[in-house]
């Protein structure tokens, strides 16, 4: 079956610098996909190529099988919410939302009604007569969203839209955006460098680094089965252990300070002596005074304890290998900084990445 949005070998170079390297991607109709990556990883460039503000050096973007190349931004019928909302300061909220309809020749009574309905959907009923400067950041955000959706675009692009909001408002808007997106069923691409945003909102996450896609998967898969070391390090916290495979059949590797470790079954097939990276999430490690039966144990010297109330992060060393352990808040009383303790895990929680 043909995908709704398709990127085929999209490449972008600026002189000698390659901003995007042969990006291939397929997105289904109605999906909410997040482009996640640090700044300069190519996620925004990809978005701008889809929107038509940047021209791909080579490759093509297709919507429902039709190429977008050769179409100017105003011909693409794509709704965009920009980082700082880009509301027209000389127009009221309602006029801002009516604007795309006006440009499509929708006359006043019908167009204004549609715009007002859309403002109601984003929760701004009764705010139509206000100018952008009379609205709060969150409200401006909603107006920008309404404006990008009112003309029933084939795609909705959101370019780090929550960056300027404070934490509480940000969480509220994440839920709102998700709700509105579901209600309208519009295919959406959300760009962010914030992994929690990506985790909480997306159907699928596309992880970008240095101009290429590292992984495309559901949030849980990206978290539990990162394809590369970069993904493991970028999303969530990880204990990253460099090791060498000693017995591929028994899934055993050896690491300098920890010794032999058994890892979870994986798609990579390797032979003896291959260097690999092992990933253990801090919340999968248990902390105890004595070794635990049936688990892999190691002695750790506790260096720092960071208390967050409901949980705590215990940072220490196994030999020279730095280790982070996430424990429930109540459990942290058993240990003090500077003491020795045992850390343990099961082979299931050791995720192996081939280099």
């Amino acid at each position, binding site marked *: 079956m043909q995908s709704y949005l398709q990127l085929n070998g999209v490449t972008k170079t600026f002189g000698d610098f390659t901003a995007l390297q042969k990006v291939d991607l397929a997105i289904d109709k109605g999906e909410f996909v997040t482009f996640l990556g640090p700044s300069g990883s190519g996620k925004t460039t990809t978005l701008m190529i889809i929107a038509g503000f940047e021209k791909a050096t080579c490759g093509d973007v297709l919507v429902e099988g039709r190429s977008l190349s050769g179409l*100017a*931004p105003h011909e693409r019928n794509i709704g965009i919410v920009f980082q*700082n909302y880009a509301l027209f300061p000389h127009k009221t909220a309602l006029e801002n939302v009516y604007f795309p309809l006006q440009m499509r020749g929708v006359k006043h009574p019908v167009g204004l009604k549609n715009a007002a309905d859309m403002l109601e959907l984003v929760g701004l009923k009764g705010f139509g007569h206000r100018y952008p400067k009379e609205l709060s950041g969150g409200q401006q955000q909603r107006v920008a969203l309404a404006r990008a959706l009112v003309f029933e675009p084939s795609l909705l692009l959101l370019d780090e839209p929550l960056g300027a909001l404070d934490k509480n408002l940000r969480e509220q808007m994440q839920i709102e955006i998700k709700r509105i997106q579901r209600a309208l069923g519009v295919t959406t691409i959300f760009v962010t460098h914030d992994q929690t945003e990506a985790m909480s909102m997306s159907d699928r996450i596309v992880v970008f680094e240095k101009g290429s896609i590292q992984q495309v998967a559901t949030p849980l898969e990206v978290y539990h089965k990162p394809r590369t070391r970069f993904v493991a390090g970028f999303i969530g916290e990880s204990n990253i252990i460099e090791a060498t495979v000693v017995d591929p059949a028994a899934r055993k590797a050896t690491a300098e300070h920890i010794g032999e470790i058994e890892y979870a079954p994986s798609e990579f097939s390797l032979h003896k002596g291959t260097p690999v990276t092992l990933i253990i999430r801090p919340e999968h490690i248990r902390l105890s005074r004595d070794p635990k039966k049936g688990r892999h144990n190691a002695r750790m010297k506790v260096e720092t304890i960071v208390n967050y109330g409901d949980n705590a992060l215990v940072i220490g060393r196994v030999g020279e290998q730095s280790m982070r352990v996430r424990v429930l808040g109540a459990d942290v009383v058993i240990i003090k900084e500077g003491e020795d303790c045992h850390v343990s895990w099961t082979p299931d929680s050791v995720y192996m990445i081939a280099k």
Partner: protein
Amino acid sequence: MGATIAKLAERPNLWPWLLLTPLAIYLAIFFLVPLVNVAIMSVTEPRLTLANYERVLVGALYQRVFLNTFLTAGLVTLACLLVAYPLAYLMNHSSQRTAMMILLLVTMSFWTSFLVRTYAWMVLLGNNGPIIAFIKAIGIEIPPQLLFTRFSSTLAMVHILAPYMIMNIYSVMRKIDPVLIRSAESLGARGFALFRHVYLPLTAPGIANGCVLVFVICLGFYVTPVLLGSPREQMIAGLIGTQIEEFLAFGMGSAMAMVLLAVTLAILAIYHRRFGLDKLWG
């Protein structure tokens, strides 16, 4: 001790005011005193009456001159706007180098003496000048009168005042966030619709600033209309000059000056209520 410090902090800082005193004294002696003097003369010369004002406001000649002044100022403002807007747009949308070149050409006329510029126009537009010669050369037997007409004075005033308009509009154009234009494009706007619904309203403050500035400066123009304009279409500043220099009618001249001042202040007051005067200089 805490209380003493609090008291010291409460005392308004006098330094900024102290720095302003030389300027204040200068303005008082050379501007305020003469102005008050003019105001007094307007009601005491030749006798203590309001007759001067009555003549200025009711007399047909004076009304015509005032009307002509406003017409000319309006025309100059409009012409400046038509010249300045495309030029400012060009500056804003060309490379840094080109923008600097245009800026240099525009401000060059600022650095040339006022009188020199006016005489240059006299040479250019005069009966023995290159423009008349050209018109004759292309076969028009009786060339039009260019110098000493409303055309010549308007042209020269536009030349002098256009930079004010350009700078005002350019500074506003520069501040427009390019994302707003992208955003408009993504919403389906292009070409003239984008200009009319987004670009033009965003530059409106610059247009308003430029127009008020040019109009107000133009109201009081003296040298250019006197030297280049038609004697039949005198402007108010010229008439004040004539009154004082030729007729020694200090009272009449002063009354007209006060009316001109009042009109100018009224325009600025309206502008201030609408936009805020502090924005006038960008």
